[in-house]
């Protein structure tokens, strides 16, 4: 009986994905305090801009609020992305969803994926899901997207010939240079990073790692980027959303 319980415990504690650990816990007490206080969290500058953009109709088009109503109605949405677009079946992340909405419903030009306006809208929508568990769909078109993302996560790349998994899974908690290696979860984006002195997307963070291993980064709209985002969201399933997170 006891052996069985121990075995179950060991199995449960085995791979890092069994109980994902948010990078929040590796960020240090001062950075955590910054994230915990909305008046000290610099990400809220973008949340506020995003809330204003939610209300503002683009020239000749309809405001987000014109269809969706109060932004509070977005509770839970960010926790479900990436997801398949119901109309086309194509997988999109939240930024992709916002741009689809702009093209189809708002007669508005696409926003640059890493531009201030997109990050602001994504932060304002994301904060509505704060505290909810990250939980993306794994069926339909998402299944193969996630599978390709996991394969990429485990592929050694770049002149330094390292995979994401070799650091963020097998060596999470150890130090790379002076910094603790986090598990690399997606639950706090867009997030404010002190090293950036600004808010940024998960794609930007992935590019930084690719550059770090001296690999050619994926373009922001490359399918590989979405695949990695989807896998990261799945391996962090259940983590509470923290948008806008603060990290060193």
């Amino acid at each position, binding site marked *: 009986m006891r052996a069985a319980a121990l075995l179950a415990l060991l199995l449960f504690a085995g791979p890092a994905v069994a109980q994902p650990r948010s990078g929040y816990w590796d960020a240090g007490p001062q950075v955590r305090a910054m994230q915990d206080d909305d008046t000290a969290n610099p990400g809220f500058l973008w949340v506020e801009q995003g809330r204003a953009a939610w209300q503002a109709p683009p020239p000749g088009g309809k405001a987000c609020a014109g269809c969706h109503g109060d932004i509070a109605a977005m509770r839970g949405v960010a926790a479900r992305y990436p997801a398949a677009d119901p109309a086309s079946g194509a997988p999109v992340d939240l930024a992709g969803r916002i741009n689809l909405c702009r093209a189809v419903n708002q007669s508005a030009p696409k926003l640059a994926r890493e531009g201030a306006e997109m990050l602001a809208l994504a932060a304002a929508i994301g904060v509505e899901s704060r505290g909810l568990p990250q939980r993306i769909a794994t069926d339909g078109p998402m299944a193969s997207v996630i599978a390709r993302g996991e394969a990429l996560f485990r592929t*050694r790349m*770049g*002149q330094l010939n390292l995979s994401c998994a070799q650091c963020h899974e097998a060596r999470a908690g150890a130090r790379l240079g002076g910094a603790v290696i986090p598990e690399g979860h997606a639950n706090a984006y867009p997030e404010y990073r002190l090293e950036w002195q600004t808010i940024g997307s998960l794609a930007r963070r992935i590019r930084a790692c690719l550059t770090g291993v001296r690999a050619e980064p994926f373009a922001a709209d490359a399918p590989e980027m979405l695949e990695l985002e989807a896998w990261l969201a799945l391996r962090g399933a259940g983590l509470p959303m923290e948008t806008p997170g603060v990290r060193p």
Partner: protein
Amino acid sequence: MLALALSSAAAAQTMDVPLTAVPGEPVRGRAIVTTRPLGLCLLCHAGPFPDRHLHGSIAPDLAGVGARLTPGEIRMRLVDPAASNPESIMPSYRRAAGALRPGRAFQGKPILSDQAIEDVVAFLATLKEE
């Protein structure tokens, strides 16, 4: 047969012939090891150098490496780390091709030149104290 396999596996863990005719220079080797963007060593390894809080903890400490390994074994670890440890994630410092998606600035290039590898070997061999 088994003995042969074992001895050839053991032989593959050392590379006793230097990569260059010019002997490695330990002072240059120290500069490479302790300058993070050059050698990258201290991203993963700690060692008997300043700023220990900025050293990595995912690879063996370099203190005493010159006592634990011969220069040939150190050279082999830089050239082909997997020869002595198939689980190692350390990249080959000499391999110039074969990586997936190498960054534009790094295509076809090794991490260090043969001479720089010799300098690093010469320096690491001096680290005798654990």
